[in-house]
């Protein structure tokens, strides 16, 4: 790719970017939120048409006008925003656009069989090829998405943050598969915010900053700090800030809580001034636990008390001073058609709403989290994925809640922005006046170990009692989550 | 009709109007009931679910045929579309009398109706007389595809064509099927023929109740009522008041009670083996301020309505 440029209205997403990937190479594409990574790769796959520049594929000029042309030319891409068709089955999604037919009719047998093979290769043989995709959890969908790219059989494979929803073992299996494909001569571009992952799995890397290529090179021996510096343009700050904390009164207490399918049995207390983490494998029911606590899913058995309030609807939860960030940003995190300010203030509008009032009220939150935008009254859907996530988190700051229920709040956020969120969390739980309590669901263990005071492990819907973060390790937690190898 | 089959032996006559909301059909209903009581037969009254819905009227007939009534009196919404259902009924040994509007077939026992062409011509003559044979005329049509009103409109045009001094300045606008669409079409027509001093139009004719109603509202609203000659078709208490107030020159009335009465009576006569005429005219009358007081006209103006 040479001299690629792309503008969205006033935003210059890419300016004269060059990128070359050899066959058999795994190339890590890095950069802050909004740096232009997804845009560059969408141009490669044909989903976007560049304003300037040219692309060559195997030495031939290559100008895809739509994803079908890209796919025909041998470029397959897994998009950052999951792009599956919810009403169709897993197998149908895997083969969407390239369905095999026999005598004009679909060859369902072949589709099913091939899907099973690819899923097995990815270590998820339990996913039913005939299941409807909207019945799968987020992680299951991500597996299907990856399976689709693999089943297509391609020369260039692009993966835009494929592991953001995947637990460690699945991610490792994915890397092994990538290695094998590269070994067969495929070129692989891989976007991620996990630097260790990128450096471990990739052969070479490129860093984008503000739509420009700032660094490229082989990964061997490169310290992560150097990449962070390239990404943010300055040296990175301390990764997991942690001030001295003092646990106070209980804000959240659940006792033998059970929902319709998950969780089956969960007991936990979260106090003022502490961060409690929940770790577990995908499908263990962490999301359902948070949803049940917040009144989004029905409670079957057991007790919930949030800020002294029993079972209640989300409205009452917010009123009593609890707030939640969903893992599903597009589905239920944000109203993407409304403005950034509307989304930030949605839980706590005054009776009257004015443009000036909205700008004033949203300013501090935008500043604290470093949300990159043109105007607070801009539709939130126009922000990059990471900045959207910050808006979803920023809502809790604006509302000034006491208890934060966070379901994978840093998914898709770059290192510097993650640090901003960690700092904010730390500030909230240690502030002198009304320190907050935080319950955070995470899949990335270094993060949980870094910011939490206590961590509980969820396994198949049952929550184990929390242990102090200082008394445990990645190894121990993973063992507990996966059932110690049973 | 509760317990219809329970009094066996009694004839059951289905009477199918074009619609059920207009007063006209309620008067027909009253006439049919009167005949039913006189002749000792059961009347089953059922119109299409939506006015002007031919398909629906066909379904009504088919349902009656399936139920097996003794005979059907039908005001066809369409002179061609209803041919087949009527033929089916006849084949199922259910005789049919057509009333109000014609059917392009001779599969029926008798046709009982106003001569609509004559009725329209009546209005045209009256306007020509009132204008002294000179002036501009507007014809606001009712709705696309309605046979009886089209006949009236053609009768009107034929009558005024005999007067070289009369000019029809608009005859391609339709009132549409609801009162509001008729009102708006009238307002717009009048606005198009407005001059500094009033209207450039001297006479207006509308061919049915809802279009006459809409035009009357527009005339009254625009302050033109009484300044232009206006003749409508069909009866309504509002029209009577307008004629008395000089806002309308007159209205052409059919005799719906008689129509309903004769339709049922003819059908029953046929069922009882008596010979009947193939064509029965129920008459049209021009009602003006002058003859409003006549007892015969009073019976037409406020006919007995079915409950």
């Amino acid at each position: 790719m040479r001299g690629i440029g792309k503008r969205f209205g006033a935003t210059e997403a890419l300016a004269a970017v060059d990128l070359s990937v050899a066959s058999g190479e795994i190339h890590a594409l890095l950069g802050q939120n909004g740096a232009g990574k997804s845009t560059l790769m969408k141009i490669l796959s044909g989903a976007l048409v560049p304003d300037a520049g040219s692309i060559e594929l195997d030495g031939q000029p290559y100008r895809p006008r739509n994803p079908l042309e890209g796919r025909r030319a041998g470029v397959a891409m897994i998009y950052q925003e999951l792009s599956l068709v919810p009403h169709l089955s897993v197998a149908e999604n895997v083969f969407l656009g390239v369905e095999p037919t026999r005598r004009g009719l679909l060859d369902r047998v072949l589709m099913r069989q091939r899907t099973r093979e690819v899923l097995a290769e990815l270590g998820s043989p339990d996913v039913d090829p005939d299941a409807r995709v909207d019945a799968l959890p987020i992680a299951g969908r991500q597996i299907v998405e990856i399976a689709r790219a693999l089943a297509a059989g391609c020369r260039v494979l692009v993966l835009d943050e494929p592991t953001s929803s995947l637990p460690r073992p699945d991610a490792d299996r994915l890397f092994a598969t990538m290695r094998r494909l590269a070994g067969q001569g495929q070129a692989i571009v891989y976007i991620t915010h996990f630097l260790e992952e990128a450096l471990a799995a990739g052969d070479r890397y490129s860093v984008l900053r503000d739509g420009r290529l700032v660094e490229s090179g082989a990964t061997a021996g490169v310290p992560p700090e150097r990449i962070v510096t390239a990404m943010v343009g300055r040296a990175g700050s301390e990764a997991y800030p942690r001030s001295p904390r003092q646990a106070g009164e209980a804000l959240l207490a659940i006792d033998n809580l059970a929902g319709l399918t998950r969780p089956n049995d969960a007991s936990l207390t979260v106090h003022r001034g502490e961060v409690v983490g929940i770790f577990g494998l995908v499908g263990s029911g962490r999301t359902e636990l948070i949803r049940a606590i917040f009144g989004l899913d029905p409670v079957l058995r057991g007790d919930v008390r949030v800020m002294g309030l029993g079972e209640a609807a989300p409205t009452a939860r917010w009123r009593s001073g609890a707030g939640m960030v969903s893992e599903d940003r597009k589905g239920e995190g944000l109203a993407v058609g409304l403005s950034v300010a509307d989304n930030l203030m949605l839980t706590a509008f005054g009776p009257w709403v004015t443009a000036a009032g909205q700008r004033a009220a949203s300013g501090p939150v935008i500043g604290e989290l470093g949300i990159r935008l043109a105007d607070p009254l801009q539709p939130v859907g126009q922000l990059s994925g990471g900045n959207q996530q910050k808006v979803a988190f920023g809502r809790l700051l604006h509302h000034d809640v006491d208890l934060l229920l966070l379901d994978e709040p840093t998914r898709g956020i770059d290192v510097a922005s993650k640090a901003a969120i960690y700092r904010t969390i730390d500030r909230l739980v240690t502030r002198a006046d009304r320190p907050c309590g935080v319950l955070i669901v995470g899949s990335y263990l270094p993060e949980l170990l870094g910011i939490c005071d206590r961590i509980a492990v969820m396994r198949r819907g049952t929550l184990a009692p929390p242990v102090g973060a200082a008394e445990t390790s990645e190894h121990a937690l993973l063992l507990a989550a996966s059932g110690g190898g049973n | 009709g509760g317990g219809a089959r329970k009094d066996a032996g009694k004839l059951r006559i289905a009477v199918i109007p074009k619609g059920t909301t207009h007063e006209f059909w309620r008067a027909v209903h009253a006439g049919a009931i009167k005949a039913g009581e006189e002749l000792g037969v059961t009347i089953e009254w059922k119109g299409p679910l939506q006015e002007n819905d031919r398909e629906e009227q066909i379904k009504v007939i088919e349902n009656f045929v399936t139920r097996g009534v003794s005979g059907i009196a039908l005001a066809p919404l369409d002179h061609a579309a209803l041919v087949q259902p009527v033929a089916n009924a006849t084949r199922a040994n259910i005789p049919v009398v057509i009333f109000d509007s014609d059917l392009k077939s001779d599969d029926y026992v008798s046709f009982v109706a106003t001569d609509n062409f004559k009725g329209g011509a009546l209005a045209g003559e009256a306007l020509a007389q009132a204008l002294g044979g000179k002036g501009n005329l507007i014809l606001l049509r009712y709705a696309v595809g309605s046979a009886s009103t089209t006949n009236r409109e053609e009768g009107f045009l034929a009558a005024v064509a005999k007067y070289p001094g009369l000019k029809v300045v608009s005859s391609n606008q339709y009132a549409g099927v609801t009162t509001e669409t008729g009102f708006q079409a009238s307002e717009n027509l009048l606005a198009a023929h407005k001059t500094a001093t009033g209207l450039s139009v001297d006479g207006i004719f509308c061919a049915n109740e809802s279009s006459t109603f809409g035009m009357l509202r527009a005339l009254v609203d625009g302050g033109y009522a009484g300044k232009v000659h206006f003749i409508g078709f069909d009866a309504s208490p509002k029209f009577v008041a307008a004629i008395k107030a000089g806002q309308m020159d007159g209205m052409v009335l059919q005799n719906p009670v008689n129509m309903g009465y004769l339709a049922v009576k003819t059908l029953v006569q046929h069922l009882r083996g008596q010979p009947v005429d193939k064509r029965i005219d129920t008459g049209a009358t021009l009602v003006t301020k002058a003859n409003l007081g006549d007892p015969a006209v009073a019976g037409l103006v406020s006919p007995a309505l079915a409950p």
Partner: protein
Amino acid sequence: MRRNLVTLMALLGAFLLFAILVHSETGDFGFVSGPNLELILRQTAIVGTAALGMTLIIAAGGIDLSAGAVIALSTVVLAAALSAGLSPLAAAILGVLAGAAAGALNGILVTVLGVVPFIVTLGTMLALRGVAKGLAHEQKIDAPMTWVNSALAALKPEDRWMLFPPGVWLTVVLAVLVGVTLNYTRFGRHLLAVGSNEAAARLAGVQVGRVKRRVYLLGGALVGVAGVFQFARLSVGDPTVATGLELDIIAAVVIGGASLAGGEGWVLGSLLGALIMTVIRAGGSQLGWSNWVQEIVTGAIIVTAVAIDRIRHRRHG
């Protein structure tokens, strides 16, 4: 605002076009005369008022196919109340309440049964027209003339100082109220949030069901006002009036820039959209176009107006 400007330009364009066409036809400027402007406004008041309610409903992600039937019901209730001897004011209030009750029914069905609004209001469209016909014993209800009828009548010379009939002014006042509600109140934001992403709104503590019920109630009340206007024009309660009018109302809202997917609605735009449609009808009619030509032109304009808006939106979006 920019959005409303586009709709305004479309309106002015259509208006100018017809003014020129009428002038070349008749040699005078009848189309831009005061009385003709008044006529167009009077003919727009019904669809315009109902479009205010529909704007709220569509912005909240709903739709109301029962609006035409509710207008008919409201005229029937009003006429029945008047002929039963109630005061004109009381009768008019009953007419509006009938609309509100219908809206409440829609809202409850949508939220309690969880059936999509298209189907709920398709059902109530049939059922409420049935109720109107039943109430009116399947005929029109005559009612005495009262001051209610002057709401949308042409102004008498001694009332010229009003500029436009009171019904037109009432529409303007209601538009301002609805505009303020939509853009400057918490309820308005919640409504837009529900229309934009219901799940997100629920998570953010918006009482989705309650917001929807209120929206349909308010929308129904505004359609009830449109029913009162309809009665004012016809002076009868007519259970068959306004058949199919819901599509005109929805078209007005969408021409005004709202998205049927919910999450946005433009009060001024909806009124302008209603005006555009009246201008086409009045203009075509005054030019003596055949009805079928008018229908083709109206259809083409609806599509074109929205297409222009979408293209503009795509470029600036």
